[in-house]
């Protein structure tokens, strides 16, 4: 029976429409995974010596921070690890025992990269411990405990799925604890460190993680089994319509029709909500630069880079997928009496309004000096004047349908991977950086800012020209786009 499951999985993987077309992405993902393995492996081998050099007791330091590692892993999993619900519906009617289906689905998660990537850290690290003369039995107990915790995370993620608030609160709690520890108010690790250390010293506490793993796995199994009905875990969620008639948007004239739709699209779909959430996160991106937290970002033109990013979160994350947001009903749009120009203008308006508000929200950056605020505002002008066009231009080449109802994949979607889009996106960042650098190194920062702002303003003047160009692309690519949007995921 397992053989049949495996053969189904094999076919599902190799026959998915995304498979052939996105080889480049697959390679990139493999590359990313390799980097991860290298980092973790490097840390596994080197961490002990690094900590030793820093005059810390390596093993107990690791035991101090391992709690953050585990919680971080859980949150990352929630964001990234996919749930094994695929292909279950058709199996329900076939003569498989339900427990078998659940076991297989859960078994699949056990094999996920999310679990075994940690081995690249823990195995070398344990070997180093042994080499350094730590008690072998204790190291094995500790290692086993870590293994149990990682797998417990795996199963927790199964029934955590959809409990966004819980994950957020755990994340917020631990962020707060981290701060509290950093500033010396309260140290959670004072309680957790002895436990993790005790795993090595007394060995017998290893039964706790083992018990945890067994409990959590059982809960996950039961949770899954109980929801194996079309009206429970496999059900589509029905939500009540919300939001008013948005009449206040009528002032935008012809564009208001589309603007209303876009606002509803953003408010009512999981995928777009995630995008908006991300663009809010972008607002904080500047902290990395302006606080000097990351050294490589200290060059003068990096300030411009940050400024463009900070106000452009929505512009980049939402804008790059125009018109794919409308992919589900693209045939409707193509047969209705729609002027492309109005359609584009409404998207443009949305991007500009969002960028404007982001810029206003960025005003607190004045804390880091006038200089920083000016950089952010100038970056916003460039975003509105030039980048809004470029983003729409790049989007015209994107032909991957967006599944509005799925929240996943918002981080680094394959559709953003396309040589043409990449070429169009380069100037979005490099442009303002280069302009600023020219001004900065000839006359001074003032000219740098002025240049960026002026080019941004000039961009406004060419809006209609750019739109004509985009419309041309839309028209020539129409049939290809329609055909591509038809292919579901």
């Amino acid at each position, binding site marked *: 029976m397992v053989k049949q499951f495996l053969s189904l999985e094999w076919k599902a993987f190799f026959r998915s429409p995304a498979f052939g077309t996105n080889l480049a992405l697959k390679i990139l993902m493999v590359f990313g995974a390799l980097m991860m393995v290298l980092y973790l492996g490097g840390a596994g081998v080197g961490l002990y010596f690094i900590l030793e050099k820093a005059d810390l007791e390596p093993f107990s330091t690791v035991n101090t921070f391992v709690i953050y590692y585990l919680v971080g892993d859980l949150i990352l999993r929630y964001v990234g690890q996919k749930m094994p619900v695929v292909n279950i519906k058709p199996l329900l009617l076939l003569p498989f025992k339900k427990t078998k289906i659940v076991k297989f689905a859960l078994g699949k998660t056990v094999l996920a990269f999310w679990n075994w990537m940690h081995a690249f850290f823990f195995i070398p690290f344990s070997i180093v411990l042994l080499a350094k003369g730590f008690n072998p039995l204790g190291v094995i107990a500790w290692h086993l405990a870590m293994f149990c915790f990682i797998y417990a995370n795996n199963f927790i993620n199964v029934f955590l799925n959809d409990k966004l608030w819980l994950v957020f609160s755990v994340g917020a709690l631990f962020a707060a604890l981290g701060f509290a520890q950093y500033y010396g108010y309260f140290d959670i690790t004072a309680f957790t460190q002895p436990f993790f250390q005790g795993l090595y010293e007394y060995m017998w506490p290893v039964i706790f993680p083992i018990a945890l793993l067994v409990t959590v796995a059982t809960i996950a199994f039961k949770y899954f089994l109980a929801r194996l009905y079309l009206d429970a875990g496999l059900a589509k969620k029905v939500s009540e319509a919300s939001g008013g008639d948005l009449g206040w948007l009528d002032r935008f004239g012809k564009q208001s029709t589309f603007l209303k739709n876009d606002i509803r699209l953003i408010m009512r779909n999981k995928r777009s909500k995630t995008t908006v959430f991300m663009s809010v996160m972008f607002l904080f991106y500047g902290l990395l630069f302006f606080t000097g937290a990351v050294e490589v970002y200290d060059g003068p033109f990096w300030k411009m880079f940050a400024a463009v990013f900070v106000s452009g979160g929505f512009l980049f994350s939402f804008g790059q997928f125009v018109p794919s947001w409308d992919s589900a009903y693209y045939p*409707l749009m193509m*047969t209705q009496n729609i002027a492309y120009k109005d359609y584009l203008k409404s998207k443009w308006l949305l991007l500009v309004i969002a960028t404007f508000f982001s810029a206003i929200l960025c005003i607190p950056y004045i804390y880091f000096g006038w200089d920083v605020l000016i950089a952010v505002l100038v970056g916003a002008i460039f975003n509105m004047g030039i980048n809004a066009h470029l983003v729409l231009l790049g989007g015209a080449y994107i032909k991957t349908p967006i599944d509005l109802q799925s929240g996943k994949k918002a981080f680094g979607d394959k559709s953003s991977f396309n040589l043409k889009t990449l070429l169009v996106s380069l100037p979005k960042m490099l442009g303002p950086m280069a302009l600023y650098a020219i001004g900065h190194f000839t006359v001074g920062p003032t000219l740098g800012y002025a240049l960026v702002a002026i080019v941004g303003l000039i961009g406004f003047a060419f809006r209609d020209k750019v739109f004509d160009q985009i419309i041309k692309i839309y028209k020539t690519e129409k049939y290809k786009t329609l055909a591509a949007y038809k292919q579901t995921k």
Partner: protein
Amino acid sequence: MITVHNLSKSYNGVTVLNLEGFEIPKGQSFGLVGNNGAGKTTLFSCLLDLIQPSTGYIENGGVKVNESEDWKTHTASFIDESFLIGYLTPEEYFYFIGDLRGENKADVDALLANFEDFFNDEIIGKRKYLRDLSKGNQKKVGIVATLIGSPDVIILDEPFANLDPTTQIRLKGIIKKMASDREVTVLVSSHDLQHVTEVCERIVVLEKGTLVKDIITSPATLKDLEAYFAGNELVVE
């Protein structure tokens, strides 16, 4: 109103549609029947400029659909759920289509008032998104939306499929009423021979992409079509 000229469509050398040409005069109610794969949806997709024909072209209201977009102002269509916007409520969707067709809310509301029976109190005022409606109700919304803005050409692909018997009968009434209007050209495809012979004045049968019958509906048509489709019936003993 609509003229098909030497239209063909092939994918990788396989011809799925090959029509010498025919004309649909203004005001005619035109039925398209044929088995799966006969090319009905392909023909409609060509007519709506959603796919490019391999050869030939279609004219709608005097314009070639793949060259000018002027036909969009007088043509309304419902092919499948990709013509619906899932995250809107039915009302919002109707108003959206109304906006695109130059009708204000009051116009749309006046039109919708005629369809209270048809909607069976399951669509208006329910605060549900289109994506959460049943397939049948989605279809009702799509069909009624084609009537907004009094278009001259209405194209419906398989309008009777997925509908309950009561709704099928009501829909027949609606299409008959549209068809009786000499200004409106209605194109309907269907697998249901009885329905299509009841509502259409003219019926074209496609088989494997070619036109095999083009008949003006008469009382004998249903029998005629049934005989045709039963033609190579397997006798099961």
